[in-house]
Every structure is written in structure tokens, then in C-alpha cells.
């Protein structure tokens, strides 16, 4: 149920590319390939950042657990935003997705969101034509995996 709700919000609320008529879609269509990839990456990160912020607002006790994720998203955006032309709107959906009332469910909602963002960025790394940019996107995706695992607060054993 949690995953289904989170999935719905990601597709219909948070994805500015879901409609061919959105400004972001029109802007991306005319950009050089890697700039378009950067725009998609920045928009996706901002959407996930908004979700985490909304969850922390609704469940303040989760702030300590998720502050690392928020700092990480900010650092990633600082690095990536330079690749996006000023005229492109990367704000995406203005409204954050609905936050689940149950704190544990909201925690899972964030982790689901981070996993989707990770997968999206790995897909964008595959599309990048510049090797250096692919490496950067791969590093951003790997950082998300690290931070998401670290936010669980448990020892992570090595998976053989």
C-alpha cells in the first residue's frame, strides 16, 4: 500500500515530463543531449528533496535520520545545476506528494522515493554521451544508495 501510494505520487505528481505539454518537456526537447539529461536529473532530485522535506515537516522526529539525505541532495544539486541553462525551469511539481501519517510508513515512503531516484539517475548515466558526466551521475546514484542505507541506522553486512 505504501509503495503503491508512493508510486502514484511519483508518476502523476512529481514527474514534470509526464505530459508532452509541460514547459520542462518542451525545453528539454531542444537542448543538447547531455544538457537534457542534466535537466532531468536536477528535476528528479528536486522532486525527491521536496518529498523528504515534506516528510520531515510532518514527522519532525525523522529529521535526524534524514538530515544526511537533505544535505546530500543539496550537494548534488549544487554540482549539477551548473549544467542546466538558466532559461529551463527545473522546479517540477510545486506541491509535495501527500505524506503518509504513520511515521514508519513515511520512513518507507522516503526510502522508496530515494530508490526510484537512484534508478532514474542510473538510467540517465546510461544515456549520458559524455563519459565524465556519466561518471558524475553514477557517483550521485551511488551516494544515494550509501545515504539511504546509512539512514536505516543498522549495520550493513556485505552481500556476497
Amino acid at each position, binding site marked *: 500500500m505504501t509503495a503503491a501510494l508512493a508510486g502514484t505520487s511519483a508518476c502523476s505528481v512529481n514527474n514534470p515530463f509526464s505530459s508532452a505539454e509541460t514547459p520542462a518537456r518542451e525545453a528539454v526537447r531542444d537542448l543538447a543531449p547531455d544538457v537534457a539529461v542534466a535537466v532531468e536529473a536536477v528535476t528528479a532530485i528536486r522532486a525527491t528533496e521536496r518529498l523528504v522535506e515534506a516528510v520531515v515537516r510532518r514527522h519532525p522526529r525523522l529529521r535526524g535520520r534524514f538530515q*544526511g539525505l537533505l544535505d*546530500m541532495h543539496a*550537494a*548534488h544539486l549544487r*554540482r549539477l545545476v551548473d549544467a542546466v541553462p538558466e532559461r529551463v525551469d527545473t522546479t517540477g511539481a510545486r506541491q509535495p506528494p501527500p505524506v503518509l501519517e504513520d511515521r514508519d510508513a513515511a520512513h518507507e515512503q522516503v526510502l522508496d522515493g530515494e530508490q526510484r531516484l*537512484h534508478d532514474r539517475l*542510473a538510467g540517465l*548515466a*546510461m544515456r549520458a554521451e559524455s*563519459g*565524465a558526466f*556519466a*561518471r*558524475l551521475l*553514477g*557517483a*550521485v*546514484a*551511488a*551516494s544515494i*544508495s*550509501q*545515504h539511504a*542505507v*546509512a539512514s536505516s541506522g543498522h*549495520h*550493513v*553486512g*556485505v*552481500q*556476497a
Partner: protein
Amino acid sequence: MKPVEALQATLAGEHAAVYLYEVLGARTSRSRTPQLFSDVDAAFRLHRRQRDNLSRRIVDRGADPVAAEVSYQLPGRILTPADVEEAALLVERRLASVYGQLVGSTSGSDRRWGLGALDSCAVRQLAFRGTPEMFPGTTP
């Protein structure tokens, strides 16, 4: 760097990792530090598979996989569980950088595989007292 050169550089890194994890396994007590032993053992087996996978990829391109060195210099004294963790963390950090280079030098299935390996290197660092980084795999 050409794709096959990046694959060879990554294979060289995995040869070193397999060697080092074998040493770390021999210096870790299964009874006194079972979690660490399990992590080192799992990492050893995983890196051996990565090494074999890379060798196949290189052979598929008609090249000869680079051979392992007879031995490798250890990163320092490895006497205590903390030394083992520190050495393992260093290996995973260096390998993350090598896999980052692989991602940047390849495309298609090699890049996809490199992305997965970079990701798992980054997460594995946490098992050895590593802390999350903002851009793992981007620094040498």
C-alpha cells in the same frame, strides 16, 4: 581511456582486492569477530566473481586479461580488527574510483555493469566503518 583499457585497469584493481581480502580473511577471527569475518569473507567471494566477470568481458573483446601480480603491498600493519576494517575500506574506496573510471570510459552493458559495481562498492564501505560520501568514486 579506451573501453578495453578501462576494463583492464578495473581487472588489475580486482586482482589486488582479491589478494588483499585473502590476507584480511587470514587475519580475522571467526569466533572473536564473527560479523567482520563474515563481511570479509563475503567481500572476498564477491571480488573473485567480479574479477572473473571482468576477465570474460576482456576476452570477449579479443584481448588478453591482465595477469595478477605475484603479491601486493599491504596498506600498512594489519594486526587488529580495526586495521582489517581500515584496509578493507581503503580497498573499496579505491575500487569505487576505478569503477567510476570504467563508467566514464565505456557505454552499453559495460557501463551498466560498472554502475552496479560502483554502487555496491559504495554501500560496502559502510560495512567497514565508512561514512556516506557526496560523490563516491570520483576521487583517486
